[in-house]
């Protein structure tokens, strides 16, 4: 292939440019490729973690609450091996539920506390907080339960928090404050869901 004069000139320029910057370009390419490969590897790792956690979690969901042994084993596996995935706090909540049913309060509390300190989902952390406060209420540690409910949480759950505050205040015999808490809850709970009926009835029971 014969080049005309103009093209030969361009070719020369290119060769000169390559002589000067070629090395830099090669290094830059290498670095870029390494980063890209690392990124892909990390993504692949994430994918593997998530997909394995997902399969385990699915099998966990199919288990009965009463199947204590299996629930404990599967949830422990998810929490230990795939603790950074979104499935971990969910698995822990299920484990807490099962442990409560099996009358293993200590494990239940430990799992709820684990959820509150792990993971990035504030909603799940708030659910764990509510359940932990419920356990404390059952243990008659009313002040501790109220204190827990007073800590920072996801504001979308304020209605449920106020409802539980009402329950605790009733248990403490503070009827007037309990009424206020229930009224507060009714203002924040979903208007169409049937849960608010219970709150209404508890409020009625205090004599309005």
């Amino acid at each position, binding site marked *: 292939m014969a080049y005309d004069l103009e093209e030969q000139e361009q070719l020369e320029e290119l060769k000169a440019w390559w002589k000067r910057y070629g090395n830099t370009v090669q290094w830059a390419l290498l670095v870029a490729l390494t980063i890209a490969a690392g990124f892909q590897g990390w993504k692949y790792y994430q994918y593997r973690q998530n997909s394995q956690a997902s*399969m385990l979690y699915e099998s966990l969901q199919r288990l009965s609450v009463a199947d204590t042994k299996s629930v404990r084993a599967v949830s422990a596996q998810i929490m230990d091996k795939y603790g950074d995935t979104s499935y971990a706090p969910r698995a822990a909540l299920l484990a807490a*539920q099962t442990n409560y049913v099996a009358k293993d309060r200590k494990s239940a509390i430990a799992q709820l506390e684990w959820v509150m300190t792990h993971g990035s989902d504030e909603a799940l952390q708030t*659910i764990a907080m509510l359940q932990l406060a419920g356990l404390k209420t059952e243990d008659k540690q009313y002040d501790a339960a109220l204190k827990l409910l007073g800590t920072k949480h996801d504001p979308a759950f304020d209605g449920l928090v106020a409802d539980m505050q009402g329950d605790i205040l009733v*248990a403490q015999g503070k009827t007037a404050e309990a009424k206020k808490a229930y009224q507060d809850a009714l203002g924040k709970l979903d208007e169409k869901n049937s849960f608010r009926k219970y709150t209404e009835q508890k409020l009625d029971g205090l*004599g309005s």
Partner: protein
Amino acid sequence: MLEAIRSRSQGWIAKVILVLITVPFALFGVDSYLRNAGSKATVAEVNGNAISVQEFNKSLQDARTQQKDDPNFIQNPEVRRSILDKMITQRLLQSEVKRGGYLVTDEQLSNLIVTMPEFQGKDGTFSQDAYDKLLAANGMTPRGFEAMMRRDLLVQQLRDGIVSTAFTPDALVDVALRAKHQLREVSVATLQSDSFSDLAKVDPADVKAYYDKHQDEFRRPEQVRMQFLVLSVNNLILTTTVTDDEIKDFYQQNANKYQGDESRRASHILIAFGSQKDAASKAAAKKKALEVLAEVKKSPGKFAELAKKYSQDPGSADKGGDLGFSKRGDGMVKPFEDALFAMSPGSVSDLVETEFGYHIIKLSEVKGTAQTYDQVRNQIRGELMSQKALSKFADVAEAFSNTVYEQSASLEPAAKANHLEVQTSGWLSRDDVASFFKNNDKLATLVFSDEVLKNKRNTEAVEIAPNTLAAARVVESRPPSIKPFDEVKADIEAALKKQQAAKLALQKGEKSLEILKQGGSVSDLSWSSPLSVERSNAQSISTSVVLKAFQMDTSKLPAYAGSVALDGSYVLIKVSAVEDGVKSMNAEDKKATIARYNGALGSEYFLAYVKSLRNRAKITINNSLLGSKDTN
């Protein structure tokens, strides 16, 4: 310059550029460019994820289909908003799925699809054929369908994952269930307002004052008293006559209709006309046929043999002339059929002439039953009468309309001509007239037109129902007015008396309540016997009383409260005992109520979860597009 461009475009630089342009298309396809070209308009955006007008319209259409295609349904702004909210929630969940790295593996997905009942073949296992066909029928590709399933599965995983975590320590469930399933022992004492009406005194001056003050309540619209005529086809039926001959004719002409499941088995001997159906061959055939008939009559028992011997019907001759069973309308030639169905079983007919030749028919058997003439005679008579009346009605109706119109100063001529009687109504408003004539607005409008109302002409005849005409004229009318005092005096007095009585009942009730609350007793109250009621089971006590009973403060028993009933009576409520309804529940019921509680709690968790996603998301809604009518 053009020359320069042309020469360069063939150079190697141009080729490099060409490759650079081609590569993205090769990798991503042209469609991604095309897809993003149109439909830029978005109804809402959720975390940068757009809901396009197209998608929104599709959801609206789906909602509309669910509402039996009521087009107004999706024009309601609230409905549109709630549909958009649902879409936003879906987007929020989808973006949360992405953020949280939730995954459904191919294995999980195929496990689900393979077990879906829609795709099961005849042997109860997954059928690839059924899968492909069903997808094709819904205009989907397997890839599209699997992506959709995966998305749904992930959202479901997200939802179930929240809902299933719901649990409440027993002590707290108990608080809620005890409130819900409490039993309260309730008795009531009703102070009937009626029993105070003797004590209630109404000053005549107050009645007049009330009348003067509330004139609006006594307004009366424009009213008329009218005369009217109704001409219906039923009037004609009575004067219609039907003769027995007509009924017989009808029965015969419609024999098919009355044959029921009757079928007859015939044998025949055919003496055919031959190929030339001229008079000579006909005469020859008849002669021959008569000879055969004579022979048959001599020995009817040998019909089969004779048929074999003489019959020129090649299909049946060998079978002794047997044609098997047939019903009317099965395709026999008419003279043959008529003859066969007029015969009695076992008999042999005379010669029957059809287009084929002369038949000698034997009826060997009858199966099933037909409706006889006598059975259906009255039914046919009725049918014929209404047929006749209907065919006459058009003429009669026209004459009626003409008479009403031409002699418009009275309804009498039209009444006389049709043996009707003119009827007269009471006072009626325009709405009353319309409902009087089966909601016929046209006639009501005519009655209140100047021509009829002021000039006292007849209305035209109007069809107010199928085959029913009506015409009216106004006898007298009165303009809108306020009812005179004397007419309403008694009503006002009664109403005021009732008010008074209710007030007295309230006074007495409140006084009694005060005494009862102080722990005193009121002697002249008659308490109902106490009933143990639940919120969901009011028994014989009214639900409003039960609602009130459950809002009473029961820290001190018995507790009392009062409430005013709809009729003004005062109801005193006594709660004498409070019981724990959960205690008396059997284990199964208790389990079910706890499950219901946790179900409600799970939903509440999820709703709060969605609210939380919403709080954290960046959502913009394009209100101008949300409200707009469909664009497709």
